[in-house]
């Protein structure tokens, strides 16, 4: 659905995943240094860190791959 001059939907998805990944990873790292009073179940897995990292990798890939103007 790439009309002339139209930014790909995959670029928008990449940017949003990247932004979310950064926020979630940062939040996970913050929790490492200041653990919450009522941790969630299996908090020891530090899910936020690896889920945030995965989103950064995928978001970064899609952002770069579908960057507007990139051939």
């Amino acid at each position, binding site marked *: *659905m790439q009309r002339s001059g139209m930014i790909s939907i995959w670029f928008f998805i990449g940017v949003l995943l990247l932004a979310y990944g950064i926020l979630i990873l*940062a939040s996970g790292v913050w929790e490492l240094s200041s653990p919450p009073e009522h941790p969630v179940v299996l908090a020891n897995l530090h899910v936020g860190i690896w889920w945030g990292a995965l989103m950064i990798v995928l978001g970064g890939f899609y952002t770069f791959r579908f960057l507007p103007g990139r051939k």
Partner: protein
Amino acid sequence: MSLSAVDIAIIALYFAAVLGIGFYLRRFTKTGEDFFLAGREMTAWVAGLSFLAANLGSLELMGWAASAYQYGILAAHWYWIGAIPAMLFLGIVMIPFYYISKTHSVPGYLKLRFGEPARALSAISFGLMTVLMSGINMYSMALIMNVILGWDIHFSIWASSVTVALYVVLGGLLSAIFNEVLQFVLIWFGALLISIVGLIEVGGWSGLVARVHERFPNQDYTHLWSGLGSFTGNPMGIHWVGIVFGLGAVISMGYWTTDFLVVQRVIAAKDLRSAKLAPIIGAAFKMCVPFIVILPGLLGLAVLPEHLVGANEVTAGQHSYNEVLPLMLARYCGPGLLGLGITALIAGFMSGMAGNVTAFSTVWTYDIYRAMIRKNATDQHYVTMGRWCTILGVLVSIGTAYMVMSFKSIMDYVQALFSFFIAPLFGTVILGMLWKRATPAGGFWGLLAGTASSIGMWAWVQLDHSAIRYVALSANAQDMAENMFRALWSWIVCVIVTVVVSLMTEPKPMSELKGLVYGETDIPSEGHLPLWHRPIFWAGVVSAVFVVIQVIFW
């Protein structure tokens, strides 16, 4: 459950993104073809993901997770036998007729095949059903936000619907489809984590089965088919005949092949091969959706300390089945991930609602307004009408949401409405596509008789509940089983009446059936394509995986 600043930032970013996409795409939405059919330029992947996302409303996400808690893995039938065969049938058999006829809508196809009366009947019933479903979706979303997060119910309804209205008014179907793909990705990222962490907690699938059996020793929640030999051998009170013939052969075929809400996304594809591939791609992902919807419900049975109850039985401090997905979200997701999960629920609601309002505005503008009220206006006039109609659809949906607050049992009535119109419509469309002898009178009277018989059976059971033993073949049948059998009977009535009336009336000349019916439509051959480029090959792959899954969870 309370949200942190990171959670709120994630939700706010989501709203900014969907609105930004709407504003960005406005410049690409100028003609009626752009607004109502996204310029017919979708790739197979985008059309396929959007086709599936339009169906992933909040009712779908939270409702089926709740059903999984209530009925166990049987709820997965609605994702597997209740979807996959129908989606593949749409891609391989029916799409060529929709696509080659160049119709704008399913009622539009009925106009070409059977004439104006059949189109009018299906357009009006579809419009009514769509806005009602949209309102129900909206209310269920607002209710969950209220129960789980304490958000004001009016704020949830208005903030979400105004956002959807804005981005659809700005960019039409193009904007809806763009956002649906984005929402589809977010739904997966937000919900998948529950299943992964949940499986780690219970020790994998075998640990899950062991825990569920230990906590609920008198019910079988973990087998897909083996308990369906009798009405009393499973938590749903349903027989395999109802699942295979009512759900698999009629309701799902009706929904996935004739509900314009989903078909609209496929006929917006850029060419016939992409249009055929889109539902097959959708089917491949649909098979995986139980992993983020059904599995959290089953995990809830295994790990939640309290036993959830039906919405009508909730007392202070208790939670209903409907809250199982948010409860599981709160169990595993800390700051940031919780915001992502809530965003997934909001995205589900918005994709479902945008699907409803875009389909409503197309059917209203092309099949009611242009057909019956103003026939020869300019293309620009119809685009403007489509934009106003989107706002009107959203407002009527909001009205329906408020109506639901007053009449709680209307949820059941709307589910019934859905089955009234979809099952007979499938009978009419499939005969129209595959049987040249079906006549305009046969199509109209078959559709009317099927719809009337379905409403009649529903009313009969409402007035005298013992009639359920005739409609659903068992006095033990539950509501879900009644829906399945009612759909099956109404489809049979529609087919019989269509056949009988057609044989008694004059058929259309063959020259008027070109591109509309099997045997009179030149469907381009795919013989020259490599095997892996052919839709039929991928349909075969999806079918094989589908069969393997049934055997694994038998």
